[in-house]
């Protein structure tokens, strides 16, 4: 089989073309870009549907229902029923039937999310924020093991950033003849909070940029490699 007809080449070629089609957005919205986007969305949706069937519905719902024991079948009846009720949302006349499934989903999701947020984020983060080393340990670790001091400094910095950021988002002010005015301390804290917020936004932007640039590098590398390997195929 000629290499040009190999799957790799075709795949590479197809990838090369799609990449160029996506990069054509630089000159503006164009049909090539739209085709590439639509292909991506369509393929993604189709693949997801296949995955959902093959890895969720069939093995977890229909197989137990068909070949499982009584207990397994009984257990699968409930999700089957909820699934059917959820499908009732498609019709205007039966949409109220799907409210039960929606309510189950919303309830379970909220519970999991709230529990995880509280137990997995709020408490540990709070504990980690307050679990600062003492000043004595911090000063003692200076010069040797800067862990405690560093942690202390880091904690103080975190505290300052957190408080100043919250102060920045405090928009209440005192009414004065010259207009609404905030206190001096509030103004200073707000200014510090602006600094922290600006730094945070900068870091986030940098991370996004680096990630995007890395992705671009990968695509360009792919193009370059395909281009360089193309002559060898012929």
């Amino acid at each position, binding site marked *: 089989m000629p290499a040009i007809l190999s799957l790799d080449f075709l795949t590479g070629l197809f990838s090369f073309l799609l990449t160029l089609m996506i990069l054509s957005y630089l000159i503006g919205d164009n049909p090539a870009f739209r085709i590439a986007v639509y292909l991506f969305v369509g393929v993604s949706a189709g693949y997801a549907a296949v995955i959902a069937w093959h890895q969720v519905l069939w093995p977890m719902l229909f197989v137990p229902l068909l070949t499982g024991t009584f207990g397994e079948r009984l257990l699968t009846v409930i999700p089957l029923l909820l699934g059917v009720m959820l499908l009732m949302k498609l019709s205007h006349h039966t949409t109220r039937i799907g409210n039960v499934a929606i309510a189950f989903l919303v309830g379970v999701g909220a519970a999991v999310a709230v529990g995880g947020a509280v137990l997995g984020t709020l408490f540990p983060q709070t504990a980690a924020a307050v679990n600062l080393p003492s000043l004595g340990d911090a000063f003692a670790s200076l010069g040797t093991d800067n862990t405690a001091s560093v942690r202390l400094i880091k904690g103080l910095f975190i505290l300052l950033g957190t408080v100043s950021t919250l102060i920045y988002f405090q928009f209440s002010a005192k009414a004065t003849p010259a207009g609404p005015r905030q206190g001096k301390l509030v103004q200073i804290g707000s200014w510090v909070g602006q600094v922290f917020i600006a730094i945070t936004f900068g870091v986030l932007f940098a991370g996004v940029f680096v990630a995007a640039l890395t992705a671009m590098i*990968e695509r*360009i590398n792919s193009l370059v490699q395909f281009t360089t390997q193309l002559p060898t195929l012929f």
Partner: protein
Amino acid sequence: MTDQRCPMCGKPSPEDQDTCQFCGARLKPLTASTPVDSQPIHPGERPTKRDTAEFEKVRQADPGSIPAGEAPTRKNTAELEQALPAWLRTIREGEHANQSSEEESPGASLPLERKPAAAAIPDWLSGLNQAAEKNEEVPDWLSGLRPETSDQEAAQPVDAEREMPNDPASTEWMSRLGQEVRGETPDKKPTAPLPSAEPSSPGAGLPDWMQALAPAAQPEPAPGGELPDWLGASASDGMQELEWPSNAPEQIPDPASASRPAMSVPDETPADPAAGSIQAWLSDLPSVPPTSEDAPALPAEGVPSWIDQLRDKAIDPRQGQDPREADPAADWRPPAEPAKEPTRPIAEAGMPDWIAKLKPQTGGEQPGNAAVFDGGQDQPGSQAGETPDWLSNLKADVNAHQEEEAGLEQFEVAEAAPERKETGPLPDWLAGIQRPAEPAEGTPALISDAGSEPAEGRGAAFAMEAPDWLSKLKPEQEEEAAGKEPSEAARHDLESAELPSWVQAMRPVASVMDETKSLPQGQQEVEQSGPLAGLRGVLPASPGLGALRKPPAYTAKLQVSDGQQRYANFLERLVANEGDARNVSTRKSESGRIWRWAISGLLILVLAAALLLGGAVEPTSLQPSDQGAASTILAGLPQGASILAAFDYDPALSGELEAVAAPIFDQLLSNGARLTLVSTSPTGPLLVERFLKYTPLVNVHQVQSGIDANNLGYLAGGPAGIQSFADNPRLYFTSLKTPEGTNVWDTPPLAGIHSLADFTAVIILTDNADTARSWIEQAGPYLGDKPMLLIVSAQAEPMIRPYFDAGQIAGMVTGLADAKVYEQAYGRPGLAQVYWNPLSYGILTVEVFLLFGGMWSLLASLRERTNRPRKGS
């Protein structure tokens, strides 16, 4: 000719019309000819005090008419006579009598002193002189006294003093009167209150005997020396027998002159004398000798001097002359008519001669006042014997005297009236007498029948009680009346008459016409609402309520200020324009596209160049972001460790994560770790396959499914699925089989795995902080002391760092930098090495762009700041 206003529609109509030419309403009342603006006195009503300015309204349509109560023009002393108070009148009469006695024949020696003719001579006689000289037609009221005999009355000598009945039936009272006069005491005063006037219809409201005495257009020639017995007897006694007022003048003027002013009777005054007063003066009256051929002479021996004077005046050569012309000072007198013909004696059988002579005579214009006793005027058309000679002589005398006496004392009052008006001692009603001669509409003094000529009424009756109006009667006026419609003459006289309030009070109730439209046209209220809207003089619906009015209409408009209205309009426009599609400018920013092309092109060029050129990658001195914690953990993993790896990143960032995860998984696979791969994203399993097959450093290990790694597939349910999987992994993937058909839980990678804690480590590969948080929150509590490592994208690292700092995760590998470090540490170059140089050049390029853009923006802002004050200045 002045127009008259219709009482219904208010539109002007010619004065000679009886009905309105627009609406057809009657302009002249049938019962009385009071003008539209006349103000009738209702029974029990108090007379209204009127402004003398209203005298201006007295119109004098016919110069020959003598409207009663007229503004005291010098022409019409009879009107003034009426307006004058009684005491003043007596004074004038006395003066006039004295003057007349000086000029007249010796026979005209009045027994009584009548120097102030106005004061001595009764009121009804005071205007005789005026009436004899007037050229005006007989007042309507007088002419209306005998409306059916208008022609006859016109020929009668104008009776300025009273109207004499012409019919035999009316002579009865005269005969009775004569009898009574003979028996009257001389103490009785001849003065009598003036009756109310009805100028429009001379005969309206008058007794029959008055109506018979229609004012004559021309003064009848004085009858030839025939006096009734009673009058002759009294004349022989002289004027001393006459009862004159105490303030009677010394000299009794001649009858003509004395009677002219003194007997000037306004036309409005109807001939309704009191019998007692008539009797008094009749008994004292001497016989009036006839004068000239024009005026029938009265027996000289039995005629008082004043009567003789009257007679002489009647034949005065200036009869034909307008007394106003002859006497400029007498402008206040009614216009005198041409020379009147002497009154003719009354020759009817059964009627005293003197009464018969008082009949109005028909004829043309006659000068002088239309005095009843105008004996100097000739009435061709008058009925013979209708007016006594003495009466006609009186009339003639009055006319003659008026013509030659320009500044007669009897006219002093009238002359003084303007003076008084100027100086102000006179009351307003008298001061206004000297107003212009143009008469305006006024309240008629005499309500006469419609169609009755003033001339007809004059001389028709001998009114003892109404001297003033009687003086207006002239024989010549009868002729005018004969040629006119009675209603017109009466209308002229009555319309223009203006009565003072005290005269109105004396008007008999019967003579008051039922004129509802008595208010002047201008004073009447116009109905504003209801079915009678637009009409004048409408009676109110009920006393005290006044005119009906529409309820006030309150505006429903919102009271807003200008500023509020502007805001409201602005809001309205906003709401209205809300649904309007706005034309979005499709103009593209050319500068933005160029800059985008430039930057992207340059960046691609740099990256491509870096990738093509390659180059040595300098070892990095960077430390891992987690300070090597992940590497430590990885280094401490035993051989064949079961590693649970979750590939939860999007295909877009697969290039970065594949480059970052490659050295880690290379290390793991190199250590014989068995991988269990799962993903919470539907595309995760596909990415797992790609990672294991196509990623450098990993693909060399040629991971086999079911032996080296098990791909569990898609983990549905999001956080709940993670939590469920973390709780019981086997339960979640119960019937999962390998491609060979083997249960995955029976494969070596998952052998002995019942919970999440059975895994040696959990590695989460994600580009999303939320996904990482979900794994941390849901699966972390189920790990126990097993480490959880996160391989995250550079964009998610800031959000996941707190979890590493909090100790919830054991290690983090972030971005390409950590990958390079790990590759460098492991000594196995991978994608990180390939991507490192382009990444560095790319970052450098972007940094240059950022720096250049920042400086450009700073310079632009500085330039704008400096230019702003310049523009403002």
